[in-house]
């Protein structure tokens, strides 16, 4: 994964609330066996409207998406994160995110920035005409008009994003600790440790 330190540029002032992952990428696009090319299906239903933001000359390819409360709710499909990435989105700003979407986004190098609705309202206004900048190290979102909003992020997620770390590789390096746990579990919870051998 590429390290991510800052995301700057135009932000799509989308703003809608309870956007589920069926809206971000409809089920028919889930039949792929690769991670690529899903940008074509991103927000497909909304993009049937010729005036949609995602295809407008002004916002197409923007690295930041501003959304409403509960962005990414519903299905666990990581295709939603892959679709956004393929559109060029590297950061989503919203008052709240679904837990699963947020995890999926982070694992694909997309930062989810939680800000209060008042800050979102201001950024929606700025985004109409001007760029927005997110700095991960200082955990801030700024605008050319001296707006400055700070956000919280899990320290481990921040570390992985800044360093571009591969989580699987990190955990595989903890193989000894996992083996120790498995040994202990064999004594403490033997029926769980046995798995499908019972059949």
């Amino acid at each position, binding site marked *: 994964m590429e390290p991510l330190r800052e995301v700057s540029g135009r932000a799509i002032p989308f703003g809608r609330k309870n956007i589920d992952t069926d809206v971000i990428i409809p089920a028919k696009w889930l039949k792929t066996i690769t991670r690529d090319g899903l940008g074509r299906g991103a927000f497909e*239903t909304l993009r049937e409207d010729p005036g949609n933001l995602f295809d407008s000359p002004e916002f197409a390819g923007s690295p930041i998406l501003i959304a409403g409360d509960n962005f990414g709710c519903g299905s666990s*499909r990581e295709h939603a994160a892959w679709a956004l990435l393929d559109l060029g989105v590297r950061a989503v700003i919203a008052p709240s995110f679904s837990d*699963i979407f947020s995890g*999926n986004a982070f694992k694909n190098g997309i930062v989810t920035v939680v800000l209060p609705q008042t800050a979102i309202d201001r950024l929606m206004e700025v985004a109409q005409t001007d760029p927005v900048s997110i700095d991960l190290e200082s955990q801030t979102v700024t605008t050319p008009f001296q707006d400055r909003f700070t956000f919280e992020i899990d320290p481990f997620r921040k570390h992985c994003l800044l360093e571009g770390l591969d989580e*699987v590789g990190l955990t595989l390096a903890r193989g000894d600790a996992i083996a120790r746990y498995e040994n202990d579990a064999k004594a403490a919870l033997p*029926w*769980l440790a046995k798995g499908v051998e019972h059949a």
Partner: protein
Amino acid sequence: MASRPRTLYEKIWDAHVVERRDANDSRGTCLIYIDRHLVHEVTSPQAFEALRAAGRTVRRPDLTLAVPDHNLPTTARRDSAGARIPIADPESAQQLAALERNAPEFGIRYIGDADAQQGIVHVVGPEQGFSLPGATIVCGDSHTACHGGLGALAFGIGTSEVEHVLATQTLLLAPAKTMEVRVEGSLGPGVTAKDLVLHICGVLRASGGTGYVIEYTGSAIRDLSVEGRLTVSNMAIEHGARAGLIAPDDTTFAYVKGRPYAPRGADWDAAITWWRSLTTDPGARYDKVVTIDAADIVPSVTWGTSPEDVVPITGTVPAPENFADPSKQDAARKSLEYMGLVPGEPMTGIAIQNVFIGSCTNSRIEDLRAAAAVLNGRRKSANVKWAIVVPGSGLVKAQAEAEGLDRVFIDAGFEWREPGCSACLGMNPDKVPPGERCASTSNRNFVGRQGPGSRTHLVSPATAAASAVAGRLADVRELDRQ
């Protein structure tokens, strides 16, 4: 350590901590051991591909079970000579073939498309005794919350996490906040577990559970069968919760005992001892508590395009201006336009053209019995063009056939299908046509969920059956009186 009162969630969490990333931070990210991993064809191909590319193996294939469910057609899968009937959609066929190839390559037990045990992963797991109380269970599917009905800590994960679990049998997780949703009292006649959880969706709204693991407690929950509990926990994700939990009890143990992968002999005795300790201690604190009176719950139905858009079947389509939140007013207007509904219209006046009985929420034997009890001796209305029953697994199907339920459905004008996810999300050929309405026992009424332009009303199996007979959304309690 031993004396601090803990919630059920904390007990399961604590039993699965491999290590803390920061030993001094009790709320920080932990490496959590995963006891059971269910794999289906949609969210796994990229995970297997990544393992292959990195030369990695599956750490515990014996804790992993692969079952195809989303793409499978629900029509016959073998011809009379036993040969496989080809799947028309090449992309569906490719995805199914990938799982059929990946599972044996990585040493994972695979239940095939024509096996009697095949079904929706969330039906198969509990049915096989693969899902157990106190276990950590994951699957690349948000409705994994379902298994919480057994008292397991179960949640949906993305494909990168599927890869992580395959390679390491663990996940890096930060602990969730805890919420108790306490439902006291008894459910009235015609009111089911589905109505209960739809009601909770209306109370908590679509994001009320975000960041929480919800434990459902109270007499109304304890009185539910295990299948009813699975229905409730299944929809925890529809209020945004990371997982749902229901403390295991004698009802749970009786359900688990004797299932193919359930512990036996001395293992069973040891398991029971631990399972009995899996209750929230007196004095343990939840971060949030919500109380609901079971007497307030009537058969519930959705009117909009979010599972929070719930009204009693006796209610009317709401007016957007009556919502306090301006963004909800806007969302409600869009929903009503999509759904083709007018504020003030009685819910029981809404004509339906399709009925779907199935999905991981409501496709178990008790669901089919409830629907068949309503349909027995009745027929679907002429304006219902398409009515299908999709059992949750081959075993549910066989049980239903042994009880003669298939005849009841067929005589009522329903199609009796093969198991799978089917019209819950229409990845297979089962779709609701654009602009048409469906009374559906599934879990999501999102825009286009059951097919482009489809209009979904989420209901219980009994309400779906009653609605099929009436040709409009119906109050099953009224039908019972006729």
